[in-house]
């Protein structure tokens, strides 16, 4: 291997620049006692103060203060955007916090772990039993290998909550047309047929953002098993986009559009507008994530509503929520571990659940609110079957926009299902080639 001197020094410079000072910290943190005597714990997250996470974490901060007298907690509420854009730069500087919330995924937590900016929590996680509280599909997003790809390797984060896609329905409208909650995909189709016959468009869909692709993915999952999800998400084997899963998903989605379950104009609808149209009672059904739950509890006043899991599916789009990560530059690592431990305690988990969140390690009996009980029982069912299948846009960088464009083509009829499958297979395969798989 011969390189020119200039190339070598440029490479070295690039390496030094990208890794920065991060590498220095890695050598001497053998014990979990590091930073135990710190007097300040700076903590960042980006959840609103009234969200389930915001409420539960505020309580956790209070508990931390009472169990650690003399330690000042410097909490700052950050914007999602700021962390998303700048985490790498911030964690590489002296302004890094001691513990923070961060997005799970290859492009976020995976990338930072690869650059050595996050602390390896593997040892701490087994010592304190965090790993036992999380089932295997929840753990997928906490582990990243040397290339920053999730699913195996060291643990770099701990999630407190989870999210999954389910079906929201308007009970009043179901009653009006004498409909029962469907338990199979056939029954679900019949329910939607009834609405169409009565000139009601059944599904609220936001085609301009994530909701539409999650419907297509749910349909694909109805024909899939865990091995297929591992192939698609974790690159275990090559995925055939014209295979029975995705082909079924795209074809059925197209049928749903043709039959009028999905309005043609929903190609341009944003997720927020989809949610509002459901809260206004304009659509009887909405297929989307548990993140709407707390908001609907507070805001839907005009009608009764409920949820059920996508009928007939064992696998559902969903994953762990965002992670607590400890930056490599944290000056109070031991305190950060203590804080994570508090957030995993049953009372904090129950508080999360009682405020419309989906706790990862909650006892359903501890959830007193009947509305939230439904949410958590559904989740426990999914989780018990190890049924979290992640999101369709995870496998490749920039894949979200590819999927949005593809599904929009299906909704407005400008592309056939086969064309769409070809279109979304290309970036997926290119990413595989980039990864050398």
């Amino acid at each position, binding site marked *: 291997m011969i390189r020119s001197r200039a190339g070598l020094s440029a490479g070295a410079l690039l390496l030094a620049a990208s890794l920065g000072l991060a590498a220095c910290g890695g050598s001497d943190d053998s014990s979990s006692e590091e930073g135990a005597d710190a007097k300040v714990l700076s903590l960042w997250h980006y959840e609103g103060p009234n969200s389930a996470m915001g409420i539960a974490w505020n309580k956790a901060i209070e508990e931390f203060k009472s169990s650690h007298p003399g330690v000042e907690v410097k909490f700052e509420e950050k*914007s999602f955007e700021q962390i998303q854009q700048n985490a790498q730069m911030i964690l590489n500087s002296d302004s890094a916090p001691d513990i923070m919330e961060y997005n799970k995924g290859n492009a976020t937590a995976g990338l930072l772990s690869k650059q050595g900016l996050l602390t390896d929590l593997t040892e701490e996680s087994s010592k304190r039993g965090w790993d036992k509280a999380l089932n295997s599909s929840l753990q997928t997003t906490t582990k990243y290998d040397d290339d920053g790809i999730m699913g195996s390797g060291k643990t770099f984060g701990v999630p407190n909550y989870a999210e999954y896609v389910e079906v929201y329905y308007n009970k009043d409208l179901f009653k009006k047309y004498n409909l029962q909650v469907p338990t199979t995909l056939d029954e679900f189709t019949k329910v939607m047929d009834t609405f169409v016959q009565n000139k009601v468009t059944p599904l609220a869909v936001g085609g301009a953002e994530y909701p539409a692709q999650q419907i297509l993915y749910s349909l694909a999952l109805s024909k899939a098993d865990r091995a297929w999800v591992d192939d698609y998400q974790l690159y275990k084997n090559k995925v055939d986009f014209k295979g029975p899963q995705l082909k079924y998903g795209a074809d059925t989605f197209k049928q749903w559009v043709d039959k009028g379950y999905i309005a043609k104009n929903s190609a341009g609808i944003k997720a927020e507008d989809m949610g509002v149209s459901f809260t206004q009672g304009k659509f009887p059904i909405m297929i989307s994530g548990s993140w709407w739950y707390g908001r609907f509890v507070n805001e839907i006043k005009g009608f009764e509503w409920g949820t059920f899991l996508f009928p007939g599916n064992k696998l559902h789009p969903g994953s762990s929520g965002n992670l607590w990560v400890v930056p490599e530059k944290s000056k109070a690592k031991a305190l950060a571990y203590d804080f994570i431990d508090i957030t995993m305690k049953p009372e904090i988990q129950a508080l999360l659940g009682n405020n419309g969140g989906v706790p990862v390690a909650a006892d359903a009996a501890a959830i007193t609110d009947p509305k939230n009980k439904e949410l958590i029982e559904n989740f426990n069912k999914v989780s018990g079957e190890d049924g979290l299948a992640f999101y369709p846009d995870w496998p490749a960088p920039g894949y979200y926009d590819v999927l949005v464009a593809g599904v929009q083509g299906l909704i407005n009829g400008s592309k056939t299902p086969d064309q769409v499958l070809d279109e979304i297979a290309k970036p997926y395969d290119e990413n595989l080639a980039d990864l050398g798989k």
Partner: protein
Amino acid sequence: MTVTANRPKTEPEPTVRAEKRANPVRFLVLAGLLALLLIIIAPLLIITINAVKSPADYASGGPLSLPPSLYWDGIVDFWNRVDFGQKLWNSFITSFTVAVLGVLLSVLNAYALGIGKVKGRLWFLVFFLVANLLPQEVLVYPLYFLSKEAGLYDSLISIVIIFTVIQAAFGTYLLTSVYQEFPTELLDAADVDGAGKLRTLWSVVVPVSRPTLGVLFTFFFIWTWNEFFLPLVFLVSNDNQTVPVALGVLQGDRLMDVTMTSSSGLIGILPALLFFLIFQRTLTRGITAGAIK
């Protein structure tokens, strides 16, 4: 160029006026202008409507419905949640400092380039123009490493320095072309009176071009006030953040809080709007004003 000579006649002939009033075209034009005005202020109106609407009303009525009662909690909650007073002060102090320093730097540069006619001034101007055209995304990494080395990362000073330079690049470019047309009679007169280069600058050039400088000052202030990207990168601590960065707090991963976002948007643009109203007179005086009095 004189200002006084070409002032339009303020009083048209009475007969002409009567004729014009009867002309139906005038009403059409008026109606058209009103419609245009409505389109322009529509976004502001919608923000205002949603800012004083409760989340439940928004959920049941949608974005265009009128709120049944005024709901101020959104604004109050947002103010307290992000400590908005602090953000206002941060924004004001950085924008003001940048505006003052930017104008000062532009004047000094433009005096050398436009009136001093230093060698290679065309290339200087091309350089400043290119600096203007560079997208900020390109500058982020170099600036990040520089500011980290200088210990200015996460500090308002870094933002002041960066934007003073960015704004002064535009200011220099604009002001140089203004000063190239500067009346040589004035400069000669100053020279004859025995004024040195500095004296000429402060006592002749600056007073004559004051309206232009006022315009630059106003623009620099508003532009810096509205900057989002670089402050987002450089102002890490909440105590250092500016108004536009603070507004970002409400944009979540998947959910947004429309009513509170509108509230924050409303109180976010009010200061810039106020500033604009106060200084609009300097703006209307024209960007290339200058005269032999």
